[in-house]
C-alpha cells in the first residue's frame, strides 16, 4: 500500500462522525452512495446545491487521496458509514494527531489508513501547505514512512497486525473463523459456569 497525493485540509479538532456523515443518512441498508453524503451539512446548501467554497467540492480535493485534519478525528458515534463515506469519496488515508478508538478500528477494516503524526509534524505540514498548497505527500505502509514535497521523511507507527492485514489484504473475519477449535473449546469450558444466558 503506497500512494502519492495532494492534501485536502479540514483543519478542525474533534471532527465527529455526525459531521463526517449525518445520522439521517444511516437509514440505508447498503454501503453504497455514501461518498456524496460525506460532510453533507458542511458541504451543501439548504437547497442541496454544493457550497463552492467548501474544500470537498473542489476538483483538487476530488482527485485527492489524503485528508489532513485536527486532533481526535472521528470521535462520537461508532458508525462505520464514516470510513465507508471517506473511502467512497476517494480517501485512502487521514492524517491527524490522534483518532477516536472506534473510528480507527473501523477505518483499518476498510483500508483507510489512520496516520498519526506528532504535533510538531502536524504543524510542519500545515506550514508547508501554507507555502505550497499543491504539494504532494507520499505514503508507504510497508516502510512506514511518509513525506511531502520538500519535507522530511517521517516514520509513522502502525499496529503490526493491522499492517499485515492492509498489505496482504487479509479478511479478518476469515482469519477469526480459522480459530474454530479454540472457540469451541472456550465455549465448552464456559457452559454451565460463567455464562448464564447460554442454554
Amino acid at each position, binding site marked *: 500500500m503506497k500512494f502519492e497525493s495532494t492534501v485536502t485540509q479540514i*483543519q*478542525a*479538532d*474533534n471532527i*465527529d462522525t*455526525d*459531521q463526517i456523515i*449525518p*445520522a*439521517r443518512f*444511516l*437509514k*440505508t*441498508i*447498503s*454501503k453504497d452512495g455514501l461518498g456524496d453524503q460525506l460532510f453533507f*451539512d458542511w458541504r451543501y446548501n*439548504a437547497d442541496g446545491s454544493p457550497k463552492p467554497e467548501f474544500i470537498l467540492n473542489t476538483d483538487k480535493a476530488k482527485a485527492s487521496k489524503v485528508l489532513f485534519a*485536527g*486532533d*481526535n478525528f472521528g*470521535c*462520537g*458515534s*461508532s*458508525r*462505520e458509514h464514516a470510513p465507508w463515506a471517506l473511502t467512497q469519496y476517494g480517501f485512502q488515508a487521514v492524517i491527524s494527531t*490522534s*483518532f*477516536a*478508538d*472506534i473510528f480507527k*478500528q*473501523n477505518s483499518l*477494516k*476498510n483500508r483507510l489508513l489512520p496516520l498519526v503524526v506528532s504535533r510538531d509534524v502536524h504543524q510542519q505540514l500545515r506550514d508547508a501547505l501554507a507555502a505550497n498548497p499543491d504539494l504532494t505527500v507520499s505514503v508507504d505502509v510497508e516502510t512506514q514512512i511518509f513525506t511531502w514535497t520538500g519535507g522530511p521523511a517521517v516514520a509513522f507507527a502502525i*499496529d*503490526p*497486525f493491522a499492517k499485515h492485514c492492509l498489505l496482504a489484504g487479509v479478511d*479478518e*473475519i476469515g*482469519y*477469526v*473463523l480459522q*480459530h474454530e477449535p*479454540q*472457540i469451541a473449546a*472456550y*465455549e465448552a469450558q*464456559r457452559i454451565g*459456569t*460463567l*455464562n*448464564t*444466558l*447460554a*442454554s
Partner: protein
Amino acid sequence: MPSNPRTIIQKVWDSHIVAEREGAPSLLFIDLHLVHEVTSPQAFSGLRQRGVKVRRPDLTFATVDHSTPTTPRNLPILDPIAATQVAQMETNAQDFGIPYFGFQNRDQGIVHVIGPENGLTQPGMTVVCGDSHTATHGAFGALAFGIGTSEVEMVLASQCLLQKKSKSFEVRVDGALKNGVTAKDIILALCAKIGIGGGTGCVFEFTGSAIRALSMEERMTVCNMSIEAGARAGLIAPDEKTYEYLKGRRFAPKGEKWDEAVAYWKTLPTDEGATYDHSVTIDADSLEPMITFGTNPGMGIAINGAIPDPAGIADPLERESLRKALQYMALEAGAPLAGQKIDVVFIGSCTNSRISDLRAAASVLKGRKVSASVRTMVVPGSQEIKRQAEAEGLHEVFRAAGAEWREAGCSMCIAMNGDQLSPGQYSVSTSNRNFEGRQGKGGRTFLASPLTAAASAVMGVVTDVRTLV
C-alpha cells in the same frame, strides 16, 4: 492482598481470552451481542455472502430503536427508508434465529435500556453492540463497548472479537452530591475536565463513595457517556445494589444458578493494590449542575458559570475550535448561559430515559406548566418504562404540564426518526451529544440532567433547578 492484584477490567478481559498470539490482537469471547437496525444490515448481508450462520443466536438479541417513530404504535412508519430498515431487521432476526423485540413488541425499547431491564446485562460479561453508547452496560461490572459494522459481522459469525487491550483509567468520585446535582452532572463534569478525547485508548473504572451511593440507573447514566470522554468502555464494580437490581429479572439466573452467579460476581471487584495506567479524581461535594454550551460534550460549565472566552486559550487550534463552536451556537463569550432562551426540551435517550429520570423530571413539572414558547418532549426508554410511568401517573403530570408523552425510542437524541430541531433552534436535552446538527440540521443543543431540562422547560430559558425550589 493477592500476589498479582488485578483491576476488574483486567479480570473480565483475562476470563474472555479465546486465543492470544504475539503481534496480533487477542481473540475475545463475547457473552452478549446486542443488535439494532441501523448498524447491522450490512453485517447480515456479509453473512449471507459468506454463507455463514450466526454462531450463537442464544447470545444475540435484537431490537429496533434508532429510526423508529415515537408516535402511537398503531400508526405506520411513514418514512419509507426507515420502514425498509425496520423490516430488514425483522427479516434478519427471523432468518438467523435471533431473539427480537420488534417494533410492536411490548418489550421494545432503546437497546441500552432493555438489556439491563430484562436482566440480559450481567456482571463480568463482555457486551458489544454496533453503538458507541454500549458502555452503559458497564454499570453492572460488564466490559461493554461499541463496535463498527464489520465487527458486528465478526461477532455474529464467530461470537468473538479481535481486540487490543485498552489502558485502564480510574475515575474516582468521592464525596456527596448536593441537592439538585445528579449522576449526569458527574459525567458531564468528567467530560469537561479531561476533554472529549481524554480517555482515548482507555477503559474507565468509576470508583469512590459518590459512585457507590448511586442507584443502578444513575450508574448507567455515568457509564453511558464514557465514550463522550473518549473511552470505549466505562465500568463500575458490582455490589449489593447490582445484585438487588438483577434479582428476578427475566434473563437473570435463577435458583442455584443465581447463587453461583453472585459468588462469581463477588470475585470481580478490583483487588487491593491493583494499579491503573491513568487516574483522575472528581470532588462530588463541590459539583454543581452542569450544562454544555458548545458543540462537543467536553464543552461544559457549571449552570451558573460563564461561557468561556476563546481569547483566554493559548493553543491556536483549541482557540479556533471554541470560536467556531460559539459561532455555531450563536453565543457570546463571557456571558452567562443561565437565562438563555430555548425552544425545545428533550427528556429521553439511553442516557436519561429510565423511570428514575422520568420521576425526576415529573417532580419538577408537577403542578407547573412548561413555557408556552417551549416544545417539551418526554420519550421513555422502553415500552416497559412507559407502562411503569403510566402506572405511577407520571404521564398525567407531563401532559398536565403541557409536555408531549411519546412512545419508546432514541428519538431526538439522534434525530433519525422525524423527531428533530429546526435550524437555529435551541434545546436543553438529557441526551449525550451536542455535535453540530446532531438533533437536526442547524439545531443547537445544551446537554444537561433531567432536573435542569425540566426546570428550563418551565421557565423557557436555561434554568438552575435550585432556583425553582
